[in-house]
């Protein structure tokens, strides 16, 4: 009796729980290493684009620079402003970091390599990315500082605005797939990547992703020239590092989302000999890498938008345009009888 109970506990809870834990570690450890080296890549690429050397002192070619940065941030003192709400002040960076990590639970990095194959995977991703605004707005409010609060207000208005057009872009993709499951979305692109038939939506999604992650040219929340660093201004040491890690993990996440929705996820560009020898996870990482390079490239070349221009672009250009494309795509699919059936 007791033996079978222990066996149940092992097969029912301990073993699957441990397996999931191992899966999570296998995803998160490479992710955090990627985040660390994304900061180095950003500095190197920016330096190359403005004819500088970039970090080159710590380790060969500056390869140990992220570790040095992490060590520096860990050993600094966490300063909490006297007027701040202590609990919320420390909760805000944790929220940002946790949200950036848990979104990866549904991302399929290769065929079947996913922690949780949710039926509503796209909605889960959308929900988590819409929660990202809380980390910023709570940080801005609890710092009890004007710069931080202004940055938080700007950021939340921006993120809420661009989410609307992102939602419509996702709807156009879902119309072509007929499922909310991320693996099904990738498998639907076996004949052609959605970036080709839905090219304008791909561009709109990528620009919205830039705005959603508060990256250049939409980095008004932390515009260092006017707001000194926006919502992060009162943060130091690990609290700041958590914001930083969350932001870069979000960049990788948004690139991953773009890859899954438009660039065929883990699928090779053509299903012929030299391409399909390479495992899917390599293709997935390669596509993310290219998109991240574009993120940095945009930062090096495009000047910052003014705030009213940003709002105009979101509400008056992207929203009507993507709405039009939803109707157009639905119309074309219906007229030529291409709607996905029986999923």
């Amino acid at each position, binding site marked *: 009796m007791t033996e079978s109970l222990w066996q149940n506990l092992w097969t029912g809870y301990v073993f699957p729980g441990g397996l999931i834990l191992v899966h999570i570690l296998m995803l998160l450890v490479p992710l955090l290493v990627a985040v660390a080296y994304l900061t180095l890549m950003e500095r190197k690429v920016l330096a190359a684009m403005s004819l500088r050397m970039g970090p080159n002192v710590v380790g060969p070619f500056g390869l140990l620079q992220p570790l040095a940065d992490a060590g520096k941030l860990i050993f600094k003192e966490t300063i909490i402003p006297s007027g701040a709400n202590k609990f919320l002040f420390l909760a805000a960076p944790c929220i940002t970091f946790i949200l950036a990590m848990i979104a990866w639970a549904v991302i399929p990095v290769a065929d079947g390599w996913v922690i949780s194959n949710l039926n509503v995977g796209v909605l*889960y991703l959308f929900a988590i990315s819409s929660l990202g*605004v809380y980390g910023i707005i709570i940080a801005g409010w609890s710092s009890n500082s004007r710069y931080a609060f202004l940055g938080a207000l700007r950021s939340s208005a921006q993120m809420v605005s661009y989410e609307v057009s992102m939602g419509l872009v996702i709807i156009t993709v879902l119309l072509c797939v007929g499922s*909310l499951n991320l693996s099904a979305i990738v498998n639907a692109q076996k004949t052609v990547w959605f970036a080709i038939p839905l090219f304008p939506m791909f561009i709109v999604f990528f620009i919205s992703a830039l705005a959603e992650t508060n990256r250049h040219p939409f980095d008004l929340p932390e515009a260092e020239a006017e707001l000194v660093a926006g919502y992060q201004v009162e943060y130091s040491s690990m609290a700041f590092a958590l914001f930083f890690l969350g932001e870069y993990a979000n960049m990788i996440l948004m690139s991953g989302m773009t890859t899954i929705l438009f660039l065929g996820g883990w699928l090779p560009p053509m299903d012929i000999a030299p391409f399909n020898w390479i495992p899917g996870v390599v293709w997935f990482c390669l596509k993310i890498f290219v998109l991240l390079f574009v993120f940095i490239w945009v930062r090096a070349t495009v000047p910052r938008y003014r705030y009213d221009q940003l709002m105009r672009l979101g509400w008056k250009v992207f929203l009507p345009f993507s709405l039009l494309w939803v109707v157009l795509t639905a119309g074309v699919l219906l007229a030529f009888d291409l709607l996905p059936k029986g999923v």
Partner: protein
Amino acid sequence: MIIQALAFYLFAAITVASGFMVIASRNPVHSVLFLILAFFNAAGLFVLMGAEFLGMLLVIVYVGAVAVLFLFVVMMLDINFVELRQGFLQYLPVGGMIGIVLLIELAMVLGGWVVAPEARSVAADPIPALDKVTNTHALGAVLYTKYIYLFQGAGLILLVAMIGAIVLTLRSRPGVKRQSISEQVNRPREDAVAIRKVEPRKGI
């Protein structure tokens, strides 16, 4: 099953506790944050019931959009807490009366509750297994066929509300400088640039 029961009690307890804290906490910003926590746990309860679509929608719509606007408004409010508490006893009789009236109404509604005879037969229908029909398909199948007029009606009401809010807040002030991007882009070169040959030591 034990884990699911534990998760249910966890989510339910946090939902009720944070619902209580929404009205009990003194700082309105904390109230809104507790409201968000309550929404979140309600979404967790939906997922436990197997209604993952509704759970995700709850998070996207209420937590991701509605509560952000709440938080915006509440953070901007300049409330004097001392003044607020002074008026408490003054408003207590009126507020208490309203509360009692609502309580009696609720009791009457619940007392006269009769389960419709059709509902019992609907509930007795076998529910298809979760791996055969997903939530999203099941909802779409009834929402866009049987309830299409109600669905469109709800959409129209929301549209009217949205237009109403815009009309109420839109002010057209004269003399405001606005950027007209099409005008900027369509400006001919002659208006913007003039090329002159400047003689040395003469100037223009």
